[in-house]
């Protein structure tokens, strides 16, 4: 698949066992590239919302949407327009701290990026940072100058801007 562009799709699915397997399996067998996938409850109790970030050329992305929509447990698929969406990702980063200077450097960077220190020990820190993937990438670039011990990223979750919402029967 060509590098192409990245697309964020919001998918409302039945809240049933096996649905995530079905979607993941679909991406694998159709040779689509998942950049990230997040799942959680939606506003309607018996459905879940998946936010899938996928990369590909226009033809591939068109197929992704159609193939996902075709799945029986998929209730709705909406492509979120870049610019018209709010997109967030959360990341936790555990960094080793050698000395007081390093500690204060890290705290400075965290403040600049509006992250938070959520755990402190004598020789390490855990930083929480939320933002667009770009912001998190930029922060991680800075943190690479230190000794990153562990990294966890949630993947993108997103909503379209404005009052319009994605509901099953619309």
């Amino acid at each position, binding site marked *: 698949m060509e590098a192409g562009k990245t697309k964020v799709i919001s998918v409302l699915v039945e809240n049933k066992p*096996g649905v995530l397997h079905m979607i993941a*399996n679909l991406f694998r067998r159709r040779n689509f590239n998942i950049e990230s996938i997040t799942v959680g409850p939606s506003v309607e109790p018996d459905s879940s919302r998946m936010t899938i970030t996928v990369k590909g050329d226009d033809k591939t992305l*068109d*197929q992704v949407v*159609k193939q996902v929509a*075709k*799945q*029986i447990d*998929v209730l709705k698929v909406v492509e979120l327009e870049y610019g018209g969406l709010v997109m967030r990702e959360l990341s936790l980063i555990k960094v080793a701290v050698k000395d007081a200077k390093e500690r204060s450097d890290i705290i400075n960077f965290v403040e600049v990026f509006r992250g938070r220190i959520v755990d402190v020990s004598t020789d390490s820190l855990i930083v929480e940072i939320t933002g667009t993937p770009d912001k998190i990438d930029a922060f991680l670039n800075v943190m690479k100058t230190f000794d990153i011990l562990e990294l966890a990223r949630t993947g993108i979750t997103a909503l379209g801007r404005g009052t319009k919402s994605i509901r*099953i029967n619309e």
Partner: protein
Amino acid sequence: MTKISGARALLESLEKHKVDTIFGILGGAILPVYDELYSHPQIRHILARHEQCAAHEAEGYAKASGRVGVCMATSGPGATNLVTGLADAYMDSIPLVALTGQVPTSGVNTSYMIGRDAFQEADIIGIVTAVTKYSYQPRSLAEIPEMVNNAFYLASTGRPGPVLIDLPKNIQTGVDDIEYTNKINLRGYNPITEPKPSKINQASELLAKAERPIILAGGGAISAGASDELVAMSDLLMAPVATTFMGKGVFPEGHPLSLGSIGMHGNPAANKLIDEADVLLAVGTRFSDRATASLSTFAPDAKKIHIEIDNAEINKNIEVDVPIVADAKKTLQALLVATKTKLARGDGIVWTKRVKEAKEQLSPLLKDNPCDVVPKHLLMALRELLPENGIVTTEVGQNQMWSALYFRALKPRTFISSGGLGTMGFGFPAAIGAKVACPERPVVDIAGDGSFIMSEQELACSVSENIPVVVIVLNNSVLGMVAQWQRALYNRRYMAVNLGKTPDMVKLAEAYGAQGIRVQSMEAFKNAVKQALKGNVTTVIDVPIGSETDVVPFVPPGCGLPQQRGDY
């Protein structure tokens, strides 16, 4: 309400869906359903001799009748043996409901339960996700009636396909109040059947002005029952009709505007004319690689209209100008009305003349001695001997492509073959299934020796269950299609294609209690077919043919349809 078992709830639900036949093999984890079957004599159970064949039998039943085929197997190996049949049905969009036993969901003082790697446990839902339209595993008995409704609805509507219901043993044996319902609960599944008027308008404008229109009909046109509409559309536009391999029979191949099938081994007239057309009306096809050959050179001059029930097929392989996502029959009906009022082109004589000329130029060459026992002559002779509604199934390989080229299918659902998955061993069990669905019609499996021995054990099924079919084995003692590729593309480096000493097909048939006839001449062949069709026992007609006979013509990989090589 009386309390009943899950097994009974299942069978009564199947009866409500008018299931008259189940093809299957039993085993421990499905025993409660088989025990219940004892009390349901109105459902005929046909004991296959391998679960893969049970699935193919259900496919043959479904393809011949248009109804949902039902197959059943036990857990573990029984279920995994069904998988090839399910994959085949998924590729060719055949409505199937598969029932499998499963180890219990829970147990007391035992590890014989799901998730514990119990005896004959296989995660069949996990395994079949990629090859079924949907799969279910009830966790309570009360779910069964609605689940069966959903399964039959999913299998038979929209783009048809296989649905699996995996039944844990404790759900089969458990007892509960069961309420039957007609309810279908599938809020995420709403197939579109009505065409959009704006699309009908666009398509009819293109068709009305077309100078060189061509119709390409696929398997979806058969599923939709759109044969009459295709004939009417062809007559209205004076448009020739090609089919894909899966569409074979949807348009009568004796019709003056029939071109036969397109494709790698398509009829030359079809491959040539699709290249010359200015408007292509494609109906119920996914533009498979075997049909289109090279994508970039497929119908290069044609504006393309694509009628298709599955939205995901639109622009998947071929980019089209007017996509119409809807039922093929309804769409063609609407298009006929809309096009009739707009028809603006001339009399179409130039195109009609071109079609006639192409058909004549490119019709089968009968220069060989008509007495030669070659596939072309055998298949043309078979057509003469079979009634119009006689059903032909094929195995996979050369036998299949010769059948596509030389056997004219005159009615829909009379030509049954494994197109998408290309499953060797499909034809014989499919013939058995077709015969069960249509007992009054003759059913013939055109086989190769390589394919036939992959499911020959079903002779036991056909003889014991009294399902007489005819098997014509085009016997070349070689895996012919791959041998042909090794000959053409691998410099004759034959590897693993020689079948060596193949079984004596006559003795093999006789060993199972079937009739075996070996023929060495066209005359003997015709007599054997006549005898077999009259008989009431399965007959294997063994026809030795040359081991180096190629299927021609042939579009080499990477080439476009008109670059077909070899004599028809």
